[in-house]
């Protein structure tokens, strides 16, 4: 993938060529097989993914799920959002291709360059706003379950 192609992806659309080049330098295109996991719930969030092709399902502990089908959609955003832990599991429904970013390198770029960080984070939040709310509602439900369990144990 070239820098120009990277700039065509929605999440990086607002980046200048030099900013996109920095992002391009830390990106790795990877093939994903049908049924393969991109990441698993509860694990430290090390990798951020941008979908290039294929269909993916993100699911949570309680059995809820959503699917991703569009080029440029992102997943693994926990890499740049505290507590840097995946809240769900991502599985490829079909074989496809993703652009993978090392979380620590992406964070270094985002935190080191305020303008670049703002542009990327704005896109991340715009893209995943609904999913964050969805994940938070799941977390709240899970925490209330845990609280109930603890109070029952007490």
């Amino acid at each position, binding site marked *: 993938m070239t820098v120009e192609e990277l700039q065509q992806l929605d999440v990086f659309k607002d980046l200048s060529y030099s900013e996109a080049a920095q992002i391009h330098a830390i990106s790795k295109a990877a093939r994903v097989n*049908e*049924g393969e996991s991109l990441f698993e719930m509860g694990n430290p969030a090390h990798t951020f993914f941008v979908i290039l092709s294929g*269909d993916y*399902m993100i*699911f*949570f502990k*309680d*059995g*809820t*799920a*959503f*699917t991703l*089908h569009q080029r440029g959609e992102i997943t693994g955003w926990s890499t740049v959002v505290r507590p840097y832990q995946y809240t769900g599991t991502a*599985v*490829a*429904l*079909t074989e496809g291709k993703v652009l993978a970013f090392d979380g620590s390198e992406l964070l270094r770029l985002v935190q080191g360059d305020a303008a670049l960080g703002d542009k990327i984070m704005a896109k991340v939040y715009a893209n995943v706003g609904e999913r964050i709310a*969805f994940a938070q509602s*799941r977390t709240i439900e899970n925490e209330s379950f845990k609280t109930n369990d603890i109070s029952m144990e007490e």
Partner: protein
Amino acid sequence: MYGFEAISHHNGWAISVVGILIVFTGLVTLSLLIRVFPKIIARIEDNGKPNAQSSSPQKTIPQSKKQEPSIDSSIKEAVRQYQYLISWMGEPFSLPRLIELAEKRGLVRPHATVSQMIHASVIQPDGKGYFLWHAK
């Protein structure tokens, strides 16, 4: 009295004709039944609501027209298998649970099949993280 004379005398020709008619009528009836049998089974399997459909035949036609173009012929059999699993799970259903069940049942390529069914709108999200069979 022997031969044709004996046959005629004891109404043999008439009995033969009646016998032939009975056998042919039976065979035709049987073949017609066999012909409509798959349709009857399909109706019974379709959402498990044969009565609702038979009572409103006009509604059935547009529904099938909606589905037919979107369902690839290669996944038609899979659709039937997954419909059975979903009717067992109840709706709305969990997509990862459906895939897990399909894997346990040994269905071929459950991830890709589910993906195909989502693209064909056979499976649709309910907006709350669960999924529904067809548009309701």
